[in-house]
């Protein structure tokens, strides 16, 4: 039994101490059995406090440690490492969660939160008193990572993982790689186009023999856990055998009678059922959209590469980690939102970028020349009454960059920016400056008084009470209104449900901690990157992709993972071998040993996963989990009951 326990109660800045009286908690536990020292600390995770804990353990010869702070998902590993640095076995450390499950959950009831925190810390101390010195269980980890999404973040992560030495399965739902960036022309800061960037990454991906790319592929099943995930990937055929002979693809497209809105161009153009989004797109093999194909057979007559006999396939993959880089969707304004869907001259920024792509010398839309352009910012972002409270980060910069491009590409363009405060942060500020220098007009309003778009006498007008001119009511006759739309999570985010990835208040995938563990999820072994996690520009997506790749690689690098030593153990004196535990074990980790009336159960600790399913089925109560014995559990339960 540990009798020299150190207890540290964290303020977490104020995240805990704003709602929990941490000094009262300390006083309430300082005289508990086994407690040798008790302290409060502003940030338990700070380097200085960690060093203080190391010094305390060494100087006072402490044999147990309790830190009452945030969720163990965040800092259990941190404080176990503190124990190890001080020469104490890390399983003598016990974590008490008084932030997520106390101060935040009960921020409406401070005395109640304090009382609950006291009992939780007492319970952790009770567990620490009985803590044992243990060694982790080592299991094999498959040295392969599945990267889901072959946009710029996914491809960058795949390259990094392959270079580090991992096998990589790059799984893309669409038939072509590049994601949203392939829809963009010249990018901001450097003049490189989105397509060029995608090509550069694709070339690098293809160079690595350890990267296998699947397109038209979707994850359909997942079992297993960190180190050993089994995935089933469903692959939709392209219905093309080989690269088409010169000219035959074009002929096949021409004869195809199907015409559907082209999603790549945000429905401002149409495409055929046989398609590729742009000529140099990768992989350079077209695809047939079978949802819209009528199977008329005209294309087969002119192109011998078309093969309708190809069937959907399912392949099984084994990986040690999964990296999600599934990107975002642009916000789709609601019918009538700033005239969208009701007034012809209203488009979104992604649509506008495609219009600019197709207009060579003169900017036209629906046959009409465009000179006066009104941009309305923060559409679908920073919503006061809507769901999207967040700023989408990229849109101010992207729009101003597009407005400058338009002004330089065409003659007589007048840009009017109806904004709520421009956020061209960091290096992008130079574009704001250039746009102002080029004569763009900026008009500003508060969120409760947005600009109004109206149509009268055959003309579209945008009206605003402009803050920058003392609330003067100003009006612009616009040839085109561009709604500067932000980022929203993918409409079809079923992969998140399949892998059970938590979503944040913004509905994007949620990391464990935005600063301390920014690419990990609560699902061990699953990391997130790019805009699947929240709005990001390309540079930020690349940063997160590299971070996620590094984290995923750390789980598969050595081919072995150290897991919790929480495995089952048998009390041989109590066991009478009825076999129920072996039946209950999903991993066949239990077998019979002995004989001649002395048979007992034996747990193979290298196979046991520590689930504990064998525990409650034993009629003799002869099974326990190491580190979670009956004594541990009953002590913890007893300590949760207030004595006064």
């Amino acid at each position, binding site marked *: 039994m540990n009798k020299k326990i150190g207890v540290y109660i964290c303020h977490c800045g104020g995240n805990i101490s704003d709602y929990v009286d941490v000094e009262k908690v300390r006083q309430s536990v300082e005289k508990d059995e086994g407690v040798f020292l008790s302290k409060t600390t502003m940030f338990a995770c700070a380097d200085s406090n960690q060093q203080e804990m190391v010094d305390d353990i060494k100087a006072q010869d402490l044999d147990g440690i309790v830190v009452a702070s945030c*969720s163990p*998902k965040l800092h259990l590993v941190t404080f176990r490492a503190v124990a190890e640095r001080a020469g104490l076995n890390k399983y003598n450390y016990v974590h008490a*969660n008084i*932030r*997520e*499950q*106390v*101060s*935040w*959950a*009960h*921020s*409406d*009831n401070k*005395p*109640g*939160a*304090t*009382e*609950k925190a006291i*009992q*939780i810390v007492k*319970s952790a101390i009770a567990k620490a008193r009985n803590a044992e010195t243990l060694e982790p269980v080592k299991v094999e980890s498959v040295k392969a990572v599945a990267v889901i999404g072959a946009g710029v973040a996914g491809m960058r992560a795949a390259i990094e993982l392959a270079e580090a030495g991992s096998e990589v399965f790059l799984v893309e739902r669409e038939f072509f790689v590049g994601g949203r960036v392939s829809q963009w022309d010249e990018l901001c800061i450097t003049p490189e186009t989105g397509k060029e960037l995608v090509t550069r990454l694709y070339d690098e991906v293809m160079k690595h023999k350890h990267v296998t790319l699947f397109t038209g592929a979707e994850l359909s099943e997942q079992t*297993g*856990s960190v180190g050993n995930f089994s995935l089933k990937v469903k692959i939709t055929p392209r219905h093309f055998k080989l690269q088409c002979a010169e000219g035959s693809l074009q002929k096949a497209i021409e004869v195809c009678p199907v015409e559907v809105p082209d999603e790549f161009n945000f429905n401002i153009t149409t495409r055929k059922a046989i398609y590729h989004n742009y000529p140099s797109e990768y992989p350079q093999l077209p695809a047939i959209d079978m949802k819209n194909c009528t199977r008329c057979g005209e294309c087969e007559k002119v192109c011998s590469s078309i093969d309708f006999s190809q069937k959907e396939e399912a392949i099984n993959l084994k990986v040690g980690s999964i990296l999600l880089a599934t990107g975002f969707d642009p916000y789709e304004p609601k019918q009538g939102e700033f005239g969208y869907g009701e007034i012809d001259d209203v488009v979104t920024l992604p649509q506008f970028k495609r219009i600019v792509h197709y207009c060579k010398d003169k900017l036209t839309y629906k046959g009409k020349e465009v000179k006066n352009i009104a941009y309305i910012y923060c559409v679908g972002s920073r919503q006061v009454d809507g769901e999207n409270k967040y700023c989408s980060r990229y849109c101010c910069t992207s729009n101003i960059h597009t407005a400058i491009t338009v002004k330089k590409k065409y003659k007589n363009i007048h840009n009017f920016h109806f904004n709520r405060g421009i956020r061209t942060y960091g290096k992008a500020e130079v574009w704001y400056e250039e746009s102002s220098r080029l004569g763009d007009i900026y008009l500003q309003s508060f969120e409760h008084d947005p600009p109004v778009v109206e149509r009268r006498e055959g003309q579209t007008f945008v009206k605003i009470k402009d803050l920058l001119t003392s609330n003067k009511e100003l009006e612009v006759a616009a040839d085109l209104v561009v709604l500067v739309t932000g980022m929203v999570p993918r409409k079809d985010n079923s992969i998140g449900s399949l892998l*059970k*990835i*938590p*979503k944040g*208040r913004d509905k994007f995938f*949620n990391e464990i901690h935005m600063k301390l563990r920014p690419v990990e999820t*609560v*699902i*061990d072994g699953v990391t997130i990157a790019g805009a699947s996690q929240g709005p990001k520009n390309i540079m930020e997506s690349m940063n997160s992709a590299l971070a996620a790749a590094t984290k995923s690689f750390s789980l598969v690098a050595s081919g072995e993972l150290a897991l919790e030593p*929480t495995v089952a153990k048998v009390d041989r004196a109590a066991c009478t071998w009825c076999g129920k535990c072996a039946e*209950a074990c*999903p*991993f066949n980790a239990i077998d019979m040993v002995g004989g001649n009336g002395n048979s007992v159960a034996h747990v193979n600790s290298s196979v046991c*996963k*520590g*689930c*504990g*399913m064998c*525990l*409650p089925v034993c009629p003799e*109560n002869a099974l326990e*989990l190491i580190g*979670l014995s*009956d004594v541990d*559990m*009953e002590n*913890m*339960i*007893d300590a*949760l*009951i*207030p004595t*006064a």
Partner: protein
Amino acid sequence: MNVGKVNNGPKILVFSTEKISDPAIDMAGLLKLHYPPTVYTIPVPCSSAIKPRWILHALEQGFDGVFIAADGTDCPYGESCTEKTGVIVGTTQQLMREKGIDPARLKMAAICSVCSEPFVKHVKSFTEYLSKPSN
């Protein structure tokens, strides 16, 4: 009913699961979805690992109710979890009857890793049930 210093409501012990339901309970805090501070959580690896004697011990020592935030079909250890946890609940409720304890003081619901709102709803309604004078 055990009466604490401040928290006078019925005390509920939640058995959460480390990988599935405990993250959901953490997220309830993150989202400031308030629930009574008389709800205490002890995480276990899997809801199929909960021994009936632990549940009985909690009820006999002063907890008014026990709530199993089960893995359900999301259990990382296998598909049999739902059925096994159900058996544990059934066995324990039988033992509770034998001891004269209302079996409704033990509840179970599947709480997935993002089921913060259902968790809060469950513990609030369980608190309400346990607060009724007849219970």
